[in-house]
Structures are given as C-alpha cells and as structure tokens.
C-alpha cells in the first residue's frame, strides 16, 4: 500500500457535508483518525450510493502486502447528489485512487473519503492530499 501519513486539517466544507449527510448515523470524528490520511489505489468492486452514508468498496493491497476489500465511507446520497455525484458516477471495475482518513481499527480496512481520482477520465472529487480549504 502506498500510504503517505500526514496531518491534514479537517475542512469546514467536508465536515459540514458530513454533518448533515450523517443525520446522526455516527460521528466521523469518533470513527476515523481525522488528523491522518492514507492513500490506496485499486479496482472498484462496489459503489453503494445510499443513505445514511454511501460506501465504495475497493480491492487494494494492505500494509501486509495482501489484497483487501477496503470500505471507503462517503457522503450520504443527498449530500453527494448536491455535488453532482450520481449512482452512475463510479462503476465496478473502475481503477481509482482514494485518499482519506483511516479507520481507528486498522483491521477494518476502512477509510473516510477525502479525495478520489479516476485516471481513465480524470474524474476527481474532494480535496487533493495536503490541500486544505482553510
């Protein structure tokens, strides 16, 4: 796994989107290390465009060198729709690069989406690693 650990300030925009998309499902801050980021690259297995939060499952290597099914948590369907994301934006088989906050339990292989890029057509969402809106 190409993991670049760095401190990233939480952004107001994403926090706000999370806040009202979350609708009290759970606290992102309590679930992920918001002061760390991790990057994975792999093949998209499933895109669950739904509430309370959308999820993207990606097959990518973990730091043990083995392939894992990573669960990447995204905004709720309503919040993402407001940002132009639809249930057809991503498709199984897409090769994507995702940067986000790692889950507090490494064994869960989960990430809170901060940035996604699909090289095949240059589609991007969120803020690039290290970028801050503040």
């Amino acid at each position: 796994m190409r993991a670049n650990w760095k401190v990233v300030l939480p952004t107001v925009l994403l926090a706000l989107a999370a806040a009202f998309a979350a609708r009290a499902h759970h606290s992102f801050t309590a679930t992920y290390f918001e002061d760390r980021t991790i990057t994975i690259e792999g093949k998209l297995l499933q895109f669950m465009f739904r509430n309370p939060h959308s999820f993207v499952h990606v097959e990518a290597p973990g730091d043990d060198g083995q392939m894992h099914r990573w669960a990447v948590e995204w905004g709720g369907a309503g919040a993402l729709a407001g940002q132009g994301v639809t249930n057809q934006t991503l498709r199984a088989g897409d090769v994507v690069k995702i940067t986000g906050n790692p889950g507090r339990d490494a064994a869960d292989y989960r990430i809170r989406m901060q940035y996604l890029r699909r090289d095949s057509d240059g589609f991007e969402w969120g803020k690039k690693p290290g970028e801050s809106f503040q």
Partner: protein
Amino acid sequence: MRALVLCGALAAAFAAASAHAQIDISGEWAGKYHEDFDDRVPGDVQGDFTGVPMNDAARRFAESWDVTRVNLLEHQCQPYNVAHIFRGPMQFRIWAEKDPATQSIIAYREYLGTYQQYRTIWMDNRPHPPEYVPHTNMGFSTGEWHGDILTVTTTHIKKEFYRRSGIPSSDRTTLVEHYIRHGNLLSHVMIITDPVYLTEPYLNSEEFVLMDRGNQNWLYNCEYVMEVPMDKNKVPYYLPGMNPFIEDYAKKFGLPFEAVFGGAPTMYPEYQPKLEQLMKRR
C-alpha cells in the same frame, strides 16, 4: 408628521402587547444548535459524557461501546428514539387531528424529518397501553395543556442512546416534554427518567424556529448494506478497561476524565472548585 411617528410607535406597542396570545404550535420547525453543536450535529471524538447523570451501569456500557457497532446490518438504520432525536439535526412538523363534530383536538401529530419518524400525541386522556405491547422508537405519548405549555408524557420507548458516545438509554425510559411557543420561537424541554441508566432526571432543552420558507430536507431513507466487510454475527465491543478512545474527548479539550465521566455530581455549581483543582493538577 410627528403625529404619524407617534401613531406608529403606539401601534407597534399595541401590537407587541397583544402578541403573546399565540398558543397554536402547528407548523414546520427547524432546530437551532447554539448549545452542544459538535455533539448534536457532526459528532466529536469519542468520549463526551459531560452533563449526563449516568450511573455505573451506563459507564460500563459506554466503556464497552465500539462505534463500529453501528455498521452492523441490524444496527446501521436504527433511528434515534424520541428521548434523543430532538438533540440531532432536526426539523419537524406538528399538526392537530380534530374531531369534526366538536373540533376538540384528539391528537397532535408530528413528522420528524430525521429518519422520517411519525409521532402521535393523544390529547383525549386515553390511558397508556399495558407493558406487554411492542415498544417503538417514538413510544406512546399523551399530552395535556397547562396554560400555554403543552406537556407530553411518553412511555413504551425502545432502548437506544442519550449520546453517540455510547451512553445507553433503556426501554424503561419515561420522557416528559414541554412545548412553549413565543411568536416564531418554539422552546422544547425534555425531562428524561431512566431507572436503568440514570441516577436522576436528564434535562435537555432545545429551540426551534418556525420555517418561513420551507425546505426540501424532509426525507431520510436508509438502505441496508454490508458497509464494512465483517462477520455478519460479529458484535464489536471493548472489554472493560480496553477502550483506547474513551478519553479522547477529555484529552482534546484539556478536561479531567474523572470529571467528564463523573455523572450527576459534576452537573451542579458546587463541583466547580473540585474541577478547578483537578485541572490544576494536570
């Protein structure tokens, strides 16, 4: 001209003097979050137990709470119950069901945008149902007016949480609400008793403002999916004393964990000197 100004002033005063009579609580109300915003809306780090009169049983439950439990298929779409839902991001609609023959209000109905929950507040003095009937997230509610204060008592509430930090509520919770309207402001007070997890009543009060231009934010659907791959029968938890995140809130804000986790004694003025001493030692 001066006369018209005087007239305007008198008219305004007159209007103000008679403005208080409004007691119709019908309408669409949007929450204000000027208290405990981080806990109520986005959620903060794990371990905010401040201001809740939790007992030792609630502490043990909270110690064991692993936030990933809400990712389980059976947990991921569980709504807040009625004793908690007013603390989240919320807008709700109230309307009256009236008897066409007498125009008496038989019940108030509420539609809560969060989780699309409906409530019925019976105003016809009917008794609460026997204990053996199913409990629901919104419970069974009866109401009565005390002057311009609508007091609602709710039982038969499902177990849930008082905080996402893992402070549990039990199915023996009784909620007493007070609705008080002043103009376009609706004050909502909750007095929660729970013999299983609280040592004394837990008080919450929220403000709602009348929505003057509506909003599309009324729908909430939740689709069950395997959010995070895991054994479908797994129950995420921490063994007592093994929760690595329980002190995150205390550490983030420079507070003594003993105080954050202290329950009712920490909610009264006389605790301030002790808190200051504890903070000095840090």
